[in-house]
């Protein structure tokens, strides 16, 4: 067999360090699937293309490497869209490869022809339509470079079938890319240091960019050296260990009261890798009204996007912190730290079960039963907030969650990607019944590959977060949020070949959790909780971070 385009694709992927792709074949991907037999790259056959994109995303979040998914033209490509958008919103490095119809059919509404480049333009960093087989390797290399540098994100490469099957010669080996030229601005770092040194009530906000920029160790060192309390965004959780004494929790709509209150009182904020989305800040005009704001981010468009920034710095967070640490003058801020300490005690006493009720207790028990290095993958909704508020992240890349896009159905396929990428770590899915249904077909993938993923479905028979919002802000008119109790999810899981059991509302979950954590293969727990088990505090729409509702 002579070399064809498909061989170039697989060879280039291998050179880029790809060991796994998540995909689903179609007539137009077949030249590529056909050559997989001769490639070291493993292809995981998912049960839906959306799941392939989420799996590539989960793989990237767990490993820090670029995740790769593959789908055919037309419906295969459009099914990737939600997964690509999810990766885009959370800045996950991903390369999505789609097959396209033969180039002589373009623009003729051919079978399974779809302009996926046009469709994905707003949700990709860039995209390539490969029009010449000799451009294949270079387009793919550029895609990997773009996906993984700067603010990471998804890049799409659309390859017509005739290019995949076109005979061609070997294409030049990887040419090391010239490092991006960055304008460093040491004076600005000095100004930020001076403002921090002067401040009496400083707070650090840690966003998802700290993890993405591999700056977690530096951030920890910075917190310890400066002895400054920190809060995180939801995406920033775990960048510095949750148990760190300076951690005040995460800010925003469903965040910790202590975190929101402290930011409100701060006179200086150093934001690391966050764009200040409205979920974190609530009403922006009332966010941190007393603070001078310094923002460090690699992405120039994220600086000042949502908030007025007094001291912006564009660059690698890691480098910025390295430059900042020696400039810190240790300073006694006893009054500030003491005030935080007492406030915290008062709040903790006030909030029973951390505001998460029975579901929170369940998650605490699950974490206690699982090894320390476990990766937890919540879905979206109440289950997500219960998890991020309860689970203690000991290390970065241990909590994988769809933050920006809030994609229900993310957890199960993302967990597949995480487990494939980090086979030596345990992976637990914490999912609601609503999100579980959205990618339930992936139980078949878990089963087929015997992936030892633990799935906990917290079942309240409702779209719980929607129900809570209806309860609080729509005068308890519960429309369209009841899923009912007619389905036996344990039977469904067993049908897919996954052992499963149900924990009743009034049952002690300890033994079932022990059976799950002890299982060598996949396992599912369906934990029933009351439909009124909400999450508190919550910030009403249109209110500020200080107007938390702490109960009905």
């Amino acid at each position, binding site marked *: 067999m002579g070399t064809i385009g498909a061989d170039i694709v697989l060879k280039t992927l291998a050179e880029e360090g790809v060991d796994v792709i998540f995909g689903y074949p179609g007539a137009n991907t077949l030249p590529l699937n056909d050559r997989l037999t001769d490639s070291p790259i493993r292809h995981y056959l998912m049960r839906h293309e959306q799941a392939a994109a989420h799996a590539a995303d989960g793989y990237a979040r767990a490993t820090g490497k670029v995740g790769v998914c593959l789908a055919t033209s037309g419906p295969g490509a459009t099914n990737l869209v939600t997964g690509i958008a999810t990766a885009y919103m959370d800045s996950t490095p991903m390369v999505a490869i789609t097959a396209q119809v033969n180039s002589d059919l373009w623009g003729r509404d051919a079978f399974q022809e779809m302009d996926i*480049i*046009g469709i994905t*333009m*707003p949700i990709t*960093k*860039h995209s390539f*339509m490969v029009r010449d087989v000799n451009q294949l390797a270079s387009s793919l290399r*550029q895609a990997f470079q*773009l996906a993984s540098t*700067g603010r990471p994100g998804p890049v799409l490469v659309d390859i017509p079938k005739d290019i995949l099957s076109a005979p061609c010669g070997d294409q030049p080996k990887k040419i090391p890319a010239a490092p991006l030229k960055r304008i460093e601005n040491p004076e600005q770092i000095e100004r930020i240091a001076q403002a921090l040194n002067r401040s009496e009530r400083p707070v650090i906000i840690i966003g998802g960019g700290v993890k993405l920029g591999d700056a977690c160790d530096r951030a920890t060192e910075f917190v310890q050296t400066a002895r400054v309390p920190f809060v995180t965004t939801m995406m920033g959780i775990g960048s510095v260990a949750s148990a760190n004494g300076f951690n005040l929790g995460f800010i925003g709509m469903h965040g910790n009261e202590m975190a929101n209150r402290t930011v409100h009182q701060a006179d200086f904020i150093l934001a690391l890798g966050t764009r200040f989305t409205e979920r974190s800040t609530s009403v922006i005009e009332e966010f941190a009204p007393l603070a001078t704001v310094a923002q460090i981010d690699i*992405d*120039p*468009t994220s600086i*000042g*996007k949502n908030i007025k920034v007094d001291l912006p710095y564009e660059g690698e967070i890691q480098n910025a912190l390295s430059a900042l640490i020696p400039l810190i003058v240790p300073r006694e801020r006893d009054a500030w730290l003491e005030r935080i300490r007492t406030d915290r005690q008062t709040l903790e006493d006030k909030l029973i079960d951390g505001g998460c009720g029975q579901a929170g207790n369940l998650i605490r028990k699950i974490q206690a039963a699982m090894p320390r290095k476990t990766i937890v993958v919540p879905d979206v909704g109440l289950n997500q907030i219960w998890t991020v508020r309860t689970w203690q992240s000991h290390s970065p890349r241990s909590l994988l969650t769809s933050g920006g896009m809030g994609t229900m159905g993310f957890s199960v396929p993302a967990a597949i990607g995480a487990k494939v990428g980090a086979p030596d770590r345990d992976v637990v899915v914490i999912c609601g019944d609503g999100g579980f249904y959205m990618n339930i077909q992936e139980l078949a993938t878990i089963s087929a590959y015997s992936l030892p993923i633990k799935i906990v479905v917290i079942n309240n028979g409702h779209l719980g977060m929607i129900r809570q919002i209806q309860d609080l802000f729509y005068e308890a008119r519960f429309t369209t949020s009841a899923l009912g109790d007619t389905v036996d999810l344990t039977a469904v899981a067993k049908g897919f070949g996954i052992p499963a059991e149900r924990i009743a509302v009034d049952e002690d979950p300890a033994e079932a959790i022990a059976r799950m954590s002890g299982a060598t293969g996949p396992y599912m727990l369906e934990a029933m909780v009351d439909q009124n088990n909400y999450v508190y505090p919550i910030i009403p729409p249109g209110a500020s971070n200080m107007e938390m509702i702490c109960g009905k």
Partner: protein
Amino acid sequence: MAIEERTISMLVNNQPGVLSRIAGVFSSRGYNIRSLCVAETTNPEVSRITLTSRAESDFTEKIKKQLDKLIDVISITDFTGAPSVQRELMLISLCLKEENRQEIIRAIDIFGCRVVAMSEDCLIMEITANKDKTAAILRYFEPFGVEEMNRTGAIAVFRQKREG
């Protein structure tokens, strides 16, 4: 923030889909492109896009950062408020009636327009001027019955080489 007309010019890769990406940066943020001019430069692999949009004063900085992130955008310049020559080309097709024929011919001369086609009851004139002047000329001729009008949108060149 004050809303005003902004003129931005950029060099881009001369490839399919590039204009669509650039338009997406504007449309996804709710900005309307008021005029748009695209043509090849002396390098056939590079095109120049000149466009105008009405927006707040921090618009250029925010939009420029977004455009900078596009792989196909090579460079961006903002002509708003800078010393530059800006021109657009406008064609006006006008009805001629006996009673206003003389006035129209005189006005064409005064405005420095050029007649490019003429018949007994109709003429087409060409105007190259900056946007304010083309607008004034159009306003003047409108009462005489403009059959058709088409304009290119602004293109611009700096008056002197900028520093840095």
